[in-house]
Structures are given as structure tokens and as C-alpha cells.
């Protein structure tokens, strides 16, 4: 009974036990808090790094698909380190013939969304002797899904998912089988973002023959280092900061798509960045 009473009376901690417990708890708690903080910041840093890289990637996919088909000698209309205005082919075909003051063309298969989007600006046809293109615009018009009979009559096969179209003004100087492409005028430029205020965004602007424009901000934010550099024919493989005076000498573009995160990691003094450089060389060129 005596022993039992003794155990019954031990219902609390001694002061020493309590103090030791508090010290241990404080140490463990501090370590745990530190761990959480470090892990949280690491997580934020990784997340923002991903976001920055996604800015670079998203812009890359869109820009490259438009840039790669640029025709070298007439495809670039204006260029600077932050802005480039280009003629972007969206459908390539061959001439079937001309009548009724228009030219019938059989086109290769092309995505319907890309084909039907606004912005037809003109066409260009290829010289059989030089391989260079002659551009026709202002005015130029396209009548979709026309010209099939003429193409059939001259034994031009229109492929599955291909299309025929009529274009005006009538193509002079071309003949049966002359390659021709339809194009849009686009401007890609880095300028102040509206989506992420205070940062730089990449804009894609469709230019219409009547002078109007429709602009969309593709992605943001970019670092101030985002820019274009330029490759020139007959030069070495180094890109130049300034475009050549004669834009027909340009053969490719170096893209600096340096994405950054929208916010900063707590405790950091700058946004996370994803420096990204790639190049697009024009595949369509006569020389």
C-alpha cells in the first residue's frame, strides 16, 4: 500500500524535467521551423524557376513555327534587336493556271486553323530561273476552295487534305507548276507587358492590308536581356546585334528568350531567371 500511494502521488513533472523538456522542445521546434523555411524557399525557387522556363518554352514554340518558313530574300521587312516584321508563309502550293483574271493554285495540306485564320496579306511566286520569289500585295485577295476544275484539267493532283484556291491579281510571269505561297505579315516584338506590369512581354501582331493591326501578348515576363540577334549570308557563324542594312542578306535569327518569374522568392533580391538562347535559320532561300 505504501508503495502504491507513492506512485499515485507522482502526477506531474519536476521543475527540472519541465525545463529540460522546454529546452529540448525549443531546439526541436527551431530546427523544424528552419527546415520548413528552407524547404519552403527551395520549393518556391524551384516553382518560380519552372515558371521562368515555361515563359521561354512557350514563346519558343510559337516563334519557331512562324520563323522557320520565312523566305530569306523577302521574308524580313524590318528588324531591330527588340522587334522584327516578317512575311510568314502559311500555305505553299503550285500554280494550275490562270483565267478570269485570277490564278488557280493547288495547296499542300495545311492545318485548317492556320489556314482559315485572319490576316492573308499577299502571295509570292517563285522564279523558275533564279529560285527567288516575287511578292504580290496591296492589293491581293484570295478566294478559298476555288480552282479545282482548272487544276484537274491540267493534271495537277490535289493531295488529301490539300486545298485549291484562287488568288488575285492574276499572276504574271508564272506558269503551270510554279511554286507559290500565301503569307501573313506579322510583327514580333518585346515591349512593356500589360499582363505583368513593369516587366517585358512578347507580342505577336497581325498586320492587315488596310493598315490595321491586331496585337496579342503571347507570354510574359522576360528579362531585359531578351532580344533578337541576326545571322548574315557569307558571314561566319556569329550572330550580330544589329540587323544587316540590306535585310535580304539575313539568313537566320538568334533568339534570346530569357524568361523570368513574376515574383521573387522571399529573401531574394531578384526574380528567378531562365536564360535561353536558340537560333532559327531560314530554310527557304535561293542561295
Amino acid at each position, binding site marked *: 500500500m505504501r508503495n502504491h500511494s507513492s*506512485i499515485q502521488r507522482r502526477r506531474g513533472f519536476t521543475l527540472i524535467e519541465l525545463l529540460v523538456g522546454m529546452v529540448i522542445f525549443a531546439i*526541436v521546434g527551431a530546427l*523544424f521551423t528552419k*527546415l*520548413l523555411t528552407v*524547404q519552403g524557399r*527551395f*520549393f518556391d525557387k*524551384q*516553382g518560380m524557376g*519552372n515558371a521562368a*522556363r*515555361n515563359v521561354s*518554352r512557350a514563346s*519558343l514554340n510559337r516563334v519557331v*513555327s512562324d520563323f*522557320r*518558313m520565312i*523566305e530569306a530574300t523577302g521574308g524580313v521587312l524590318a528588324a531591330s534587336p527588340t522587334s522584327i516584321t516578317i512575311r510568314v*508563309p*502559311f500555305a*505553299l502550293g*503550285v500554280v494550275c493556271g490562270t483565267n478570269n483574271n485570277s490564278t488557280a493554285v*493547288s495547296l*499542300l*495540306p*495545311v*492545318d*485548317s486553323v*492556320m489556314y482559315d485564320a485572319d490576316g492573308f496579306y499577299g502571295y509570292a511566286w*517563285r522564279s523558275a530561273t533564279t*529560285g*527567288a*520569289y516575287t511578292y504580290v500585295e496591296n492589293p491581293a485577295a484570295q478566294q478559298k476552295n476555288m480552282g479545282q476544275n482548272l487544276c484537274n484539267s*491540267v*493534271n*495537277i*493532283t490535289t*493531295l488529301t*487534305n490539300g486545298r485549291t484556291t484562287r488568288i488575285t491579281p492574276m499572276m504574271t510571269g508564272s506558269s*503551270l*507548276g510554279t*511554286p507559290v505561297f500565301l503569307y501573313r505579315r506579322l510583327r514580333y516584338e518585346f515591349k512593356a507587358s500589360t499582363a505583368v506590369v513593369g516587366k517585358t512581354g512578347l507580342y505577336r501582331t497581325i498586320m492587315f492590308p488596310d493598315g490595321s493591326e491586331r496585337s496579342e501578348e503571347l507570354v510574359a515576363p522576360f528579362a531585359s536581356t531578351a532580344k533578337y540577334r541576326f545571322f548574315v549570308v557569307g558571314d561566319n557563324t556569329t550572330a550580330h546585334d544589329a540587323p544587316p542594312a540590306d535585310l535580304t542578306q539575313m539568313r537566320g535569327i538568334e533568339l534570346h528568350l530569357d524568361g523570368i518569374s513574376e515574383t521573387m522568392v522571399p529573401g531574394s533580391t531578384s526574380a528567378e531567371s531562365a536564360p535561353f538562347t536558340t537560333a532559327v535559320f531560314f*530554310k*527557304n*532561300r*535561293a542561295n
Partner: protein
Amino acid sequence: MAYPTERRGFALPTAMLVILVMTILIAGGFSLVSAERRSVADQRSQISAFQIAQQGLEIFLIRRDSLIPNAPMVPGAKDSVRINFTGGYADVSLTRLRPVMGTMSGLYVVRSKGVETVGAYAGSPQGVRTVAQYVLWEPAPMQVLAGWTALSGLDKNGNAGTLGGFDACGDSAAVAGVAVPVNPGYTGKTAAATGDPPVDTVTAAEVAIDWNAIINQGAIKATITIPGGSWPSDAQWADTTFYPIIIVKQPDFALPTSGRGMLITSGHLTLNGSVGWKGVLLVGGDIVSNGNNGVAGATISGLNVKLGTYVPASTANGTKTYQYNSCEVSKATTPAGALVTLRNTWVDNWVEY
């Protein structure tokens, strides 16, 4: 026994909480890294697929003959082949948009669909890209100096017939009626020769035909090789679009029937009776032409002179018509042509549904 049950500590819940929090953090980090790696892999896959597609396109244009065994020399309505690469393959197809028509080359489009087969994450589609290019089937270029170019000389007996250099097709400028070296030159009657000039002089070196490559190195792929192969049947000749390349490697050969195409003989050739030829005759030895026959196209005899071999002068007896005809030359050289890329007609937005 009551003592242990009353020891209420917090070590276990604390440890569990720490493990839980750590697990959540690690899972989050892993998710981030995984998403990043997947994005990078997708991007890399797209680039690889593009590279494979472009490689497939270029290799097909250079090596179509070896990639598609027994393919017709002039591509038909469609050819297709799969080219395997490390890490993927390219499905390449050649589709005819317009056949050869007269002197117009055949128009084709080559499409190459590149597929990357390695590196894709589970659940991610394979990287696929398609590129395409217009190409022409261009007949082999042939230099025509005269209706009959005789590098070992030519002897014409009788005034009858025509050795003509004016293009019977009307497409090309006139050439000489006969072209021969100064020695042994052209002998016999000259009245039959017409052209610009009727008779011209030429040296063996001026005839831009690599005869050694043709006769000894297989530079031209034959439709029929004799001996070994058989002369085409009447049924085959009945097809007026049949323009074979026939290579005869024997010392003497007599033309069995009239025909068309490109006839290449290493030795002596005899044309008797009324048998004639439409297209091109490339003859290593001399030609003896008897009777009422002739060639519409272009004839070159004595080509073995270019190999340093003595060749007797060719002989044209009777009523001969050896008339330059650029259309027949074009038809005869078409099978020996090649796919020629139309520069500046490359696309990478070919839609695949």
C-alpha cells in the same frame, strides 16, 4: 501495470508530424522536378523528331534507288519507304502532283514524317514532325552537237535521205546535221546534210559524255542489259510511252526491230532494212546503216575513240533519215534523270490528322 499507461508523451506525434510534413515537401519537390523533366523531354523529343524528318527527306532525295529496290526509274504516282535511324524513324513518301508532259518535268512532293521512338515518358506521345519539299524529275542533261555526231568519221553513200540538225520538235535551236573530227572527217555525198551548219567539225574531247563511266562503271542504270536480258517484245513496243534504256555489251549488234528509248552499245551497230530508232543512240563502235531507216533524236557513234580505241568510220548506205528531235531526246533521257530539289519550297507545317 498502471505506470506505463500513464506515460503520456508527445515524441511519437511529433515524429509523425515531422515525417508527414517532410513527405509532403518531398512529394511536392518530386512533382516539380518530374514536371520539369517531362517538359524538357517533350521539347527534346520535338527537336529530335524534326531532325529525323529532315534527315529522312535529304537521304531519300539522294538514295531513292537503293532505298526502294525495283522502284521504277521514273517515279510513279507514289513511292514510300521507312528509313530507320538511331532513336527513331522517318516515313518518307514521294507523291506525284503532275506527270512528265512533253518537255515539262514531272512535279512531285516529298514528305518526311519523323518519329522519335526513344526518350518519351510513359503517357507522353512520341515526338512527331513532318517536313516536305517540292521536287522535279529532271531528265538527264544531254549535249547534242549534231543530228549525227560521228567521232570516227562518217561516209555517206548517195544523196538520198536526211542528216538533219534542225529540231523536228521545234523546241530547241538548230544544231549541225553532222559533226565529225577533221580527220577522218565526213566523206561521200553532202547533199543530205542539213543543219546549222550542215557539217561541222568536232573533237572527241568536245563531246561531253563520260563514256568510260557509262560503259565500264554503270553510270546509267539500264532497263535491259544484253547479253543476259531480252530485246523488248512487240507488245512492249506497242506501248508508245515505253522508252527503255538498253545497254548492249558485245562486239557486234544488229538492231532486231524498230524501237525507242536510249540504246547504248559498246561495239559495232548495224541497222538493216527499215528498222529505225526514236531517241538516243550512243555507240562505242561504228554504225553501218543499210536500207531505208533512220533515227529521230540524236546519234553519237565512235565513242570508243574517247577510250583511245581505233574505230572505223561509220557508213550510211541508202536512204537515211538521221534527224535531230529534242522531244525524242528528252523522252529517251527522262528515265536516266534524277530528282531535283526545287529550292525555296520547303515546308514544316504539313498537317497530319
